[in-house]
């Protein structure tokens, strides 16, 4: 094989600390290399044309590009060599940017290391074989996990695009966090008025199947052909016949159940529909509080239900759904602020979270839209908002900015004045982060038109003083201490990854960061893709996000799914393991070690052999290193190819 080598400057990214011309000169001496040069930007159009021309001019059979990480441009250059008529696997990349120039300043050492990497790539390339993809059919259905605003957007866009959608929601209603909000910033329009119709659309769309109060139990398969096991949790109410009339709720004698939807402001009944606009509008029993289920006594709901749908014996049920793509939209949860001893750690009833305050502001909330102190039900006069509770605070392990608290605090301050014109709001803030269309104007309005007192500084202590709460903090602009007699304190509690996010990530085989937020394929260029083909992200599961960004991502994920499904067949990656039947002794070790269940037993002329299901194999290579016979080989990374790289590196 005649090999051509291209050493990229990447502007000054590589050239600044690597002598690329010297690397190219060294490469010219390698066995098989007939052409080597250095170029300014190999990935640019002239750079790629140079490769195409060199292949034609020098009749090259394979190409090595020494530049950035293959994650960045391997696909780019594979297409380039394909354009010149070569098989795209007759191409190798040496990463001399992330692995060399960006991490070392010694130009001579960097140049030597780059030469080594190019030599390794060349030796491997000499043993590369043309590989060809196979085509397989795909199932054009999509699973959306999570029924918040991001999931709703993704589901509706996919369904409107003609796809069949399966939506799985953990709680008994869709709507997510947005359904709990009273108003939205910066327009102060009613949250349920804009979300409600979208929720109804989900329920009524002929293409959408909704599993509420359900969770993902198991995910198998691969892009185009996933098999999902869904656990439908027992609701103790037959939803096929439940009409959502609410009589059971009126009559239920167990009225002390935790009201999760209202964030614990007030109590609900053991059998409940979370809120009047719930979708689906079906009742479910909270088994922790139902006396029939805990003590075996009661049964009132079964007596009063006009359609006879109460079933105390109901068990969890499992259903299987086949889909071709998955949109993950599992959202966020609030940080557990009780670690803040200085704010009372939950001891003071009149210190509440922003989401609790939101429920209080809502006309359909437990207080009917009246702002009341939880302790005594009185109207507060002085209300203190504290920002960055569980955001930008390394001491509680949350160094990141949640991003939307500055805005919702400003909104709540404005709404407070609307509800209680005689009230005075104070906001303790670190910085005001109002980056977005009409956002900064909005926070200015809270200050200038609604007379909210913004105090730049942290609160050091809250303690009860008579009926009031004394809030003490620093005013870092004035350089003084501030004390405010507050009637109510609202904490702008930050967001963290939703409970169970990491467990779901492992089922999806996608990666997550140290806080549990899911990792996108590329921080700039692949914002809704993951590193697992066919799995996409939408909304705050990828990182804290406000409503517009979540909705944008929901639509983006839907566009990706529609793009994927625009073809009837997908090409499989030929970089999979293949069994050499002559060598295989049928020991089955590869079957045991394969994490994807991609290898099965087969019979060949009366003998047991291993067989790889190519569409399931992910090309990890574990079987290759397990096989005692060297019979199973990962294509494009065979033992011979890896050894040739090692030899190239260790020849001196």
């Amino acid at each position, binding site marked *: 094989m005649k090999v051509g080598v291209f050493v990229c400057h990447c502007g000054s990214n590589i050239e600044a600390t690597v002598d690329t011309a010297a690397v190219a000169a060294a490469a010219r001496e390698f066995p098989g290399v007939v052409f080597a040069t250095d170029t300014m930007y190999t990935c640019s159009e002239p750079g790629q044309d140079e490769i195409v021309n060199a292949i034609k001019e020098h009749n090259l059979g394979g190409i090595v590009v020494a530049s950035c990480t293959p994650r960045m441009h391997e696909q780019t250059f594979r297409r380039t060599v394909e354009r010149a008529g070569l098989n795209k696997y007759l191409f190798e990349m040496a990463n001399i940017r992330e692995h060399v120039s960006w991490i070392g300043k010694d130009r001579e050492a960097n140049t030597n290391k780059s030469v080594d990497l190019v030599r390794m790539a060349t030796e491997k390339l000499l043993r590369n074989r043309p590989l060809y993809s196979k085509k397989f059919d795909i199932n054009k259905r999509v699973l959306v996990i999570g029924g918040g605003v991001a999931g709703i957007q993704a589901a509706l866009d996919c369904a409107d695009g003609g796809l069949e959608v399966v939506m799985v929601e953990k709680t008994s209603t869709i709507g997510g966090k947005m359904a709990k909000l009273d108003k939205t910033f910066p327009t102060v329009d009613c949250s349920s008025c804009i979300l409600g119709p979208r929720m109804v659309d989900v329920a009524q769309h002929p293409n959408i199947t909704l599993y509420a109060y359900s969770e993902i139990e198991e995910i198998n398969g691969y892009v185009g052909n996933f098999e999902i096991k869904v656990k439908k949790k027992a609701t103790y109410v037959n939803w096929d016949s439940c009409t959502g009339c609410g009589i059971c709720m009126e009559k239920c004698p167990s009225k002390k159940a935790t009201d999760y939807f209202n964030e614990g402001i007030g109590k609900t009944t053991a059998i409940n529909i979370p809120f009047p606009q719930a979708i689906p509008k079906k009742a479910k029993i909270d088994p922790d509080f139902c006396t029939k289920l805990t003590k075996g006594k009661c049964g009132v709901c079964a007596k009063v239900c006009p359609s006879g749908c109460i079933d105390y014996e109901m068990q969890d049920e499992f259903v299987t759904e086949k889909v071709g793509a998955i949109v993950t939209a599992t959202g966020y949860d609030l940080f557990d602020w009780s670690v803040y*001893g200085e704010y009372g*750690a939950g001891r003071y009833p009149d210190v509440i979270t922003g989401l609790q305050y939101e429920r209080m502001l809502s006309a359909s909330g437990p207080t009917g839209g009246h702002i009341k102190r939880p302790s005594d039900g009185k109207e507060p006069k002085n209300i203190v908002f504290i920002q960055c509770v569980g955001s930008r605070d390394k001491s509680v392990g949350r160094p990141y900015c949640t991003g939307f608290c500055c805005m919702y605090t400003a909104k709540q301050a404005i709404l407070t004045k609307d509800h209680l014109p005689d009230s005075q709001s104070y906001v303790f803030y670190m910085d005001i982060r109002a980056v977005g269309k009409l956002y900064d104007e909005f926070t200015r309005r809270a200050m200038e038109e609604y007379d909210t007192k913004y105090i730049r500084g942290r609160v050091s202590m809250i*303690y009860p*003083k*008579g009926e009031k709460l004394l809030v003490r903090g620093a005013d870092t602009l004035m350089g003084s201490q501030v004390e405010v007699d507050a009637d109510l304190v609202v904490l702008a509690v930050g967001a963290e990854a939703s409970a169970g996010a990491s467990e779901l990530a492992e089922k999806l085989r996608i990666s997550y960061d140290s806080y549990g937020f899911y990792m996108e394929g590329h921080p700039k260029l692949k914002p809704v893709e993951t590193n697992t083909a066919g799995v996409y992200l939408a909304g705050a599961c990828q990182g804290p996000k406000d409503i517009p960004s979540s909705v944008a991502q929901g639509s983006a994920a839907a566009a990706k799914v529609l793009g994927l499904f625009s073809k009837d067949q997908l090409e499989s990656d030929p970089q999979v393991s293949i069994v050499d039947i002559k060598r295989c002794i049928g020991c089955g070790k590869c079957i045991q070690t394969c994490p994807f269940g991609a290898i099965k037993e087969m019979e060949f002329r009366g003998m047991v052999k291993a067989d790889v299901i190519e569409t399931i194999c992910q090309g990890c290579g574990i079987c290759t290193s397990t096989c005692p016979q060297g019979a199973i080989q990962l294509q494009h990374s065979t033992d011979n190819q890896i050894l040739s790289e090692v030899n190239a590196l260790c020849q001196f």
Partner: protein
Amino acid sequence: MNTSLNYAYYPGCSSTGTSIEYDMSSRAVCAALDIKLTDVPDWSCCGSTPAHTVDHSLSSALSARNLDQVASMGLDSCITPCPSCLANLKTAKHRMEDEGFRDKVNNLLDKPANTKIETKSVLQILVEDYGIENIRKKVVKPLTGLVVGAYYGCILNRPAELMQFDDREHPMAMDNIMEALGATVVPFPLKVECCGASFGIPRKDVVMRLSGKLLDTAKSIGAMALVTACPLCQMNLDMRQDQINHANGSHHKIPIFYFTQLLGLALGLTEKELGMNKLCVSPRTLLDFMVNEENIKEKAA
């Protein structure tokens, strides 16, 4: 119950003067609970506030010498009633984990100090080693009728990483002990606020303001008395109570006990053993009131 609790005891300088009743009552309580204390031989000042405001290595050298004296007893830990001594001894051990700093300190000493000695407060060992339930069993004269607030001061639990005891914002150790002794404990909202500390000397007005606020708050929640675990807090609230009243125009007459004094009382020790007569704001009326309440309760029973 572990009946063989043995500790090296570091009294600290104030125990020989301003807080002698804290020392007396600590020793008496430990004796009554069969906790054996052995004084650190030839102990000296821990450096207190003046040393570390001038020179960290000097401060640590003074503390390290005492820790080394503990090591010479063949022990690996000691206890002290005073939070300020506690902070200094613990800080010295922590700082001397750094090799460079350790060398600097050892240069100031006759011989390199043992840096492995742990220090705990008397309060901590009573709660953690002896146990509140065991204290409850030993009560012979419950503090009937006493409504008390527990005031910890700002350094007993802080910095949390160093002190490793109770909650830094909402400690409960003394509240729980007082409850076990039969007193009615009212949550004291300013339990970790600063009393003004040694500002009593250069800036008396600061102490008047800060300690004044503590007394005002104690009164507002209906506390008949406060318990403390710190000689400086106790001094500012007790000895300076008249000055505070004068400066702020208030009329407080709130007895400020060391928690060990009330603990001793409940264990049946005499007022004399506990140094009750050393308090500036006389607890006489309150002590008689408690006896009276207990009598009424017994008669009723």
